[in-house]
């Protein structure tokens, strides 16, 4: 009974500190989703519409970032690349030589590989006639892709995107290894001083669960907002 009380007290007292990690976790995810989106869309377009060398290059990228574990990339980025970048004063001045930046980049670059596969599937699921009709109206391929293909493909991608969000949420917990003060690293440090790893881990798990639920809910709302009225075509993802 005494142990239980101790555990609850420890959790209660640690709560504000651990919750402070939510902002870092959310920052990691939002940053990584954004990086993944910005790179994933051109990667997908390159894979579908690119010339042979472009397609090759895009596939190589996807293969590479899907193949190397995030943990390995974190170490590589933090101790290798960012240590090099921090020699440039501009980056240091903008605080871009931080562990947080390294984690956002690693998570984002990996997410871009996965997101590009989502977008590629969505683009390829669109009827071929969409691009044909756009070309027949005198649109350049760039215009056709940006005004006709992508707006449809991105809408169709939102359900799979929710999935990517929850994966990123879990992957973001790995950032503790390079010292980003997100939920997991805070949980670990409190656990080390209070010797209450189990209740604190449960607490962290609950926080992650709530974040997953809230994020998916938000994406569902977005999906409903941008839904194409009466649209019956189902993306095969």
């Amino acid at each position, binding site marked *: 009974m005494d142990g239980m009380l101790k555990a609850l007290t420890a959790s209660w007292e640690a709560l504000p500190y651990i919750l402070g990690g939510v902002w870092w976790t959310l920052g990691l995810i939002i940053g990584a989703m954004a990086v993944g989106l910005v790179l994933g869309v051109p990667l997908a377009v390159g894979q579908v519409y690119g010339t042979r060398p472009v397609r090759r290059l895009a596939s190589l990228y996807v293969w590479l970032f899907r193949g190397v574990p995030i943990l390995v990339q974190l170490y590589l980025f933090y101790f290798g690349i960012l240590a090099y970048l921090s020699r440039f004063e501009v980056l240091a001045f903008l605080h871009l030589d931080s562990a947080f930046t390294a984690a956002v980049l690693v998570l984002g670059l990996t997410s871009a590989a996965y997101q590009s596969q989502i977008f590629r599937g969505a683009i390829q699921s669109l009827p071929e006639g969409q691009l044909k009709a756009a070309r027949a109206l005198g649109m350049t391929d760039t215009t056709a892709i940006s005004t006709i293909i992508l707006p449809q493909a991105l809408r169709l991608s939102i359900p799979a995107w929710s999935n990517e969000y929850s994966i990123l949420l879990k992957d973001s917990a790995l950032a503790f290894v390079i010292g980003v003060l997100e939920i997991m690293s805070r949980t670990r440090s409190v656990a080390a001083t209070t010797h209450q790893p189990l209740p604190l881990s449960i607490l962290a798990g609950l926080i992650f669960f709530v974040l997953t639920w809230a994020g998916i809910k938000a994406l569902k709302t977005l999906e409903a907002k941008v839904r194409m*009225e009466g649209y019956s075509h189902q993306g095969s993802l």
Partner: protein
Amino acid sequence: MQNESVVLRVEDVVKHLGGQRILDGVSLTVKKGRLKVLIGPSGAGKSTLLQCINFLLPPDEGKVFLDGREINGKSKKELLWLRQRVGMIFQDFNLFDHLTAMENVRVALIKVKKMDKRAATHRAMEELARVGLADKAGLYPAQLSGGQKQRVSVARALAMDPAVMLLDEPTSALDPELIGEVLAVIRDLADAGMTMIMATHQIGFSSSLADEFLFMEKGRIIERGAPSDLLARGSCSRTMAFCAKLSELSGEMGG
């Protein structure tokens, strides 16, 4: 005479697809305000020919002239010019599913013709009214019937002020009861002097509007002439035989 000027000329177009010679030297000339009708069995190459004309499928050999100007297929700029001047209607409509009827008609005015939004919207509404769909402007393609979708696609093509329209079996994907409304729009276009090439199985309808039937088979035009000649009583034309077969299948002439 202005009315007799040649709008479009196709010379000896050859196209291979999947290792096969799909178009085997096709030539035709369309004068201003005339309607040419392509008929022939499925797989004859009608769709391929229409798509070669606006270089959606670049011809392997042969020439295409629009307004007397030979199109250089290697020049992106010329292709974009050509496609702006040539309207295309597809069998399965190909409306942009994420845009309303009005936005479907408007999008190329803004993105291709660089019209400002207000003027483009105004023009789009005019074209929708012309095909009788002003009241459906805010609906998405999935909310429209097949006949309405095809009329929107006609409005979308008309908004670009095309010199010629290519129609690829515009009523083939429609339920029988919806064919009439689309044919009525096409008749209006013909009456208004639009220059057109149409692939269709609607023989009865088109024989009253077309100045020439082109009968295609195996990538060639094997018969051509005025509908009245080809379909004259006692004529033993291929066209006549084909049409007899069509009406046998559908139970009525031009059905």
